[in-house]
């Protein structure tokens, strides 16, 4: 059996064998589209604080959100040395991508980093300081784009949306994201940090990696 066949069989089994869900394995975080605006030119500052660029003292516009969580396997084991990248549009709905920002230079928040990266330690945890996501034209559901990889293998591309946001029900990506359980797995509660001076939010979003082989391998047509 070739490697590809083996992978194909594996992914087929994933879809058709309900038994794989059994024994209380965690449900995998649904895969969602990467969208067109993964930065075409990564910023110089790629740290996990998207509010301040390098040594700047001017913070990004928007409501600060502490976006944290863990990256787990389906059995609940933390995944270490996983790289999580996030990207999202700024408070004025401009992405760090020339196809989006070129026509919106006046609108763009130059102080928002737009993209950040974090590598997990043995606890699988990640932590970002960013802004609470806002809607984007054509995307009524505010969202943070997420890509998880390990080494050079991409494990998951998905998005995190705001639980209970009124735009979700009208959002094409949200609506096509599977059943109501899947919907739960791509939303996080954005709650106000008590006693915060500046209207800060926190959101915890655990990410469960369904399969560890490279996404792209598994997404090849199964019958070819």
């Amino acid at each position, binding site marked *: 059996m070739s490697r590809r066949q083996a992978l194909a069989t594996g992914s087929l089994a994933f879809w058709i064998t309900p038994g794989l869900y059994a024994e209380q394995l965690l449900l995998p975080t649904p*895969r969602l589209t990467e969208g*067109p*605006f993964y930065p075409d030119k990564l910023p110089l500052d790629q740290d996990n604080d998207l509010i301040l660029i390098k040594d700047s003292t001017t913070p990004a516009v928007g409501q600060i959100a502490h976006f944290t969580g863990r990256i787990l396997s389906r059995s609940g084991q933390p995944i270490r040395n996983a790289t999580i990248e996030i990207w999202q549009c700024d408070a004025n709905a401009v992405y760090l991508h020339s196809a989006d920002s070129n026509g919106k230079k006046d609108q763009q928040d130059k102080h928002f980093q737009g993209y950040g990266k974090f590598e997990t330690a043995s606890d699988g945890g990640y932590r970002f300081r960013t802004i609470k996501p806002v809607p984007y034209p*054509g995307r009524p559901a505010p969202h943070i784009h997420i890509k998880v990889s390990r080494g050079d293998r991409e494990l998951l591309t998905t998005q995190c949306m705001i639980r*209970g946001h*009124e735009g979700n029900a*009208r959002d094409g990506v949200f609506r*096509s994201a599977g059943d109501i359980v899947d*919907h739960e797995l791509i939303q996080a509660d954005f709650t106000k940090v008590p006693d915060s001076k500046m209207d800060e939010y926190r959101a915890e979003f655990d990410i469960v990696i369904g399969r560890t082989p490279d996404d792209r391998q598994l997404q090849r*047509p199964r019958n070819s």
Partner: protein
Amino acid sequence: MNKFMCFVVLAVIFPAPAIAQPPGAANERGFGPRRVGQRNSAAQQERKVSSALIKLLQYDADDDGNLTREELSDSRLQALFTRADKDSDDALTKAELVAVVGGNPSSAPTRSAGEPTQRSGSPAVTDSETSTVPLAVVIPDPLRDSLGLSQHQRDELARLQLEVDRKLKQILNAEQHSKAKQWTEERSRQAPASIQAR
């Protein structure tokens, strides 16, 4: 006349939409998988209800058909549990389960087409904005229903349909696409019942 209504497309599945990143894309809309037409909504809804139920009932450790908060051990599903637990007794009866996943609690988990879905504590879903009739239907509903497809086949078919919609949107320019959509939607309004297999 039926020929018009019978769009059968030979579609090729391309690698993941998640990876594809066409150049010059200026609008984020359209890069998510699009919804299959609303005419599919009854079957689609039924499928979503059953798949959600299957997932939730896997947590039913003692297999009694009810789900306690303890049994639903995944912290990511606690919000769903709270929403579903109408009487706040920390246990979900079958009726509560079926209701929260969008089914009809008093009978089998089905729902008629066009009936709005209440979910996520958000307003009932209205389809006015996102209503889409696919430009090209891979397998028309009546044919699909007559084939006796397995759940897996239905899922695969839905995926293929999304892929076809997505590719078409890439191939056509915006003007062509909207013209084609208009045409298709008019057609489906005129004679929805005549969409059928050869």
